[in-house]
């Protein structure tokens, strides 16, 4: 790379931060969020719980945009263009988050609960992985790209939101897909009648299948004695760091080594050359590596902050605070709302879709997902929902200041991919009980091996998605009469 220029015209205030409109808009966004935060706290200091989600969301958004950190490309670019950049960044984030999560665990405020493991994880991961090739971004990636002004990414978010809300309430013909054993098992769970758990495929999937499965962390499975050994050796080292190191070596061997040795004209490589090669691969995209480190750190801090607030208010769920403040309309039958306490994306988006559908009179709460577990809170008081909005704001702030913000209207092809791919991502996320963040990143870093199963599924789906996308490209090239 011998020449780089930045052809941006500025007026007489060139060089001063306020001489660029993007910086002013970025400051305006941050200023408005600050004013909103102060206003919320002036109403009731307990809104601090929601504001933690907002500000961590902004932090995630800043880092995601800074490092172009989109986990979709971790698997997609590996198969599509042979680039391991994002897979490496993702593994760096996993290593660091596993360590910060272990610290939080030892402090006794870790909010993570292991996921049940079963076939649904790999199938859901595969459907999700197939979808992300077509949408151009994972669930978090679509949010940060929305912050860059990408309207196609906003369509993906819309599609994920509404598709999930629809999937979890579908009944009728879809009930025929459910094995009788699930229906029988669901009926024995003693659920409130208003949930009608033997109707609706997702209720029967949840109560008749998922609830019969087990989930645990590695520290629990290996029966580690002592909190410190369990958190650091069992969960962090064995569950996350060791598999990440193995994957990094694999990525070097099969996606980076050849190019590295050719670039440095090394014909007979020794162990030292390979170690330098692995370091070159890890450090080749400085921004991605820094974002990975930052996200790992931030995700752990987020878990600590929410855990500490739960301790302070003596609650298990934000729904209790909402009820105390008189906001009961969106709560579930158990007076709970979705409140993971850590980085999570898809469930709050399902709640957005459900809230709009409920207002339109086409959504009911006679289901486990909304009625019993997550509720359908007004988006204004949906704490994890604000984390997602925070990601958009954070990404917009940094994209504006880096002069990368651009309103981008999708063409028909991109819009179609956004809607269909988003609907596939929504289905995959609901089957696997989370996306690449909730079902992978947050799980493997807390010693829950189900996340690696999700990654295997997402990789398979990504591979098939790239094959299908290549076919589509070939067809388009022929249709547009240019030969590539």
């Amino acid at each position, binding site marked *: *790379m011998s020449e780089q220029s930045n052809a941006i015209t500025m007026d007489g205030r060139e060089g001063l931060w306020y001489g660029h409109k993007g910086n002013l808009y970025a400051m305006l966004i941050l200023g408005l969020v600050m004013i909103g935060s102060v206003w919320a706290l002036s109403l009731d200091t307990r809104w601090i719980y929601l504001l933690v989600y907002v500000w961590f969301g902004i932090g995630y958004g800043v880092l995601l945009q800074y490092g172009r950190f989109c986990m979709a490309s971790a698997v*997609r670019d590996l198969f599509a263009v042979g680039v391991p*950049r994002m897979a490496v960044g993702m593994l760096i984030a996993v290593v660091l988050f596993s360590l910060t999560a272990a610290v939080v665990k030892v402090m006794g405020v870790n909010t993570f609960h292991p996921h049940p493991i079963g076939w649904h994880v790999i199938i859901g991961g595969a459907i999700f992985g197939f979808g992300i090739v077509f949408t151009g971004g994972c669930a978090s990636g679509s949010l940060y790209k929305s912050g860059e002004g990408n309207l196609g990414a906003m369509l993906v978010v819309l599609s994920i939101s509404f598709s999930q809300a629809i999937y979890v309430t579908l009944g009728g013909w879809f009930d025929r897909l459910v094995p009788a054993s699930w229906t029988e098992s669901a009926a024995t769970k003693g659920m409130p009648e208003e949930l009608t758990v033997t109707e609706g495929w997702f209720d029967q999937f949840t109560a008749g299948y998922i609830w019969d499965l087990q989930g645990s962390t590695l520290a629990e499975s290996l029966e580690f004695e002592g909190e410190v050994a369990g958190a650091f050796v069992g969960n962090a080292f064995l569950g996350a760091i060791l598999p990440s190191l193995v994957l990094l070596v694999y990525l070097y061997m099969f996606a980076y080594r050849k190019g590295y040795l050719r670039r440095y004209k090394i014909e007979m490589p020794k162990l030292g050359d390979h170690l330098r090669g692995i370091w070159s691969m890890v450090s080749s995209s400085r921004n991605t590596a820094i974002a990975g480190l930052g996200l790992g750190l931030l995700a752990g801090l987020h878990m600590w902050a929410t855990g500490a607030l739960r301790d302070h208010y003596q609650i298990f769920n934000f729904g209790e605070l909402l009820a105390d403040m008189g906001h009961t309309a969106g709560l579930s039958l158990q007076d709970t709302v979705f409140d993971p306490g850590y980085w999570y994306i898809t469930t709050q988006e399902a709640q957005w879709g459900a809230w709009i559908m409920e207002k339109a009179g086409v959504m009911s709460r006679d289901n486990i997902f909304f009625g019993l577990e997550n509720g359908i809170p007004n988006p204004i008081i949906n704490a994890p929902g604000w984390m997602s909005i925070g990601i958009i704001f954070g990404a917009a702030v940094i994209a504006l200041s880096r002069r990368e913000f651009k309103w981008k209207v999708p*063409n028909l092809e*991109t819009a179609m991919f956004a809607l269909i791919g988003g609907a596939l991502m929504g289905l995959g996320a609901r089957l696997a009980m989370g996306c690449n963040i909730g079902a992978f990143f947050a799980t493997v870093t807390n010693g829950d091996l189900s996340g690696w199963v999700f990654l295997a599924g997402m990789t398979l789906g990504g591979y098939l998605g790239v094959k299908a*996308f290549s076919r589509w490209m070939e067809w388009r090239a022929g249709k547009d009469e240019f030969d590539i």
Partner: protein
Amino acid sequence: MAVKFEKVADGDYLLDVTGYVCPHPQMYTKKVLGKLESGDVLTLLFDNPSSGESIIAMCDSEGNDLFQRTEEGGTSQWKIRKA
């Protein structure tokens, strides 16, 4: 708005993928570079920042020379000489 690929002169090609998001820009770039001869220059127009990171890594890996990068109004114009 469609992907545009054309020969500008001998050994000089243009690929315009503005308006497209991941994975279009990097996949079309990979495909086009695969078809060009050694020494040919590809001018690439795109406006999806995250694709840029993948294209840099791809050029590094395959030894292609990304010798000019210009950014204007959110659109990037990069020139790549095939190894």
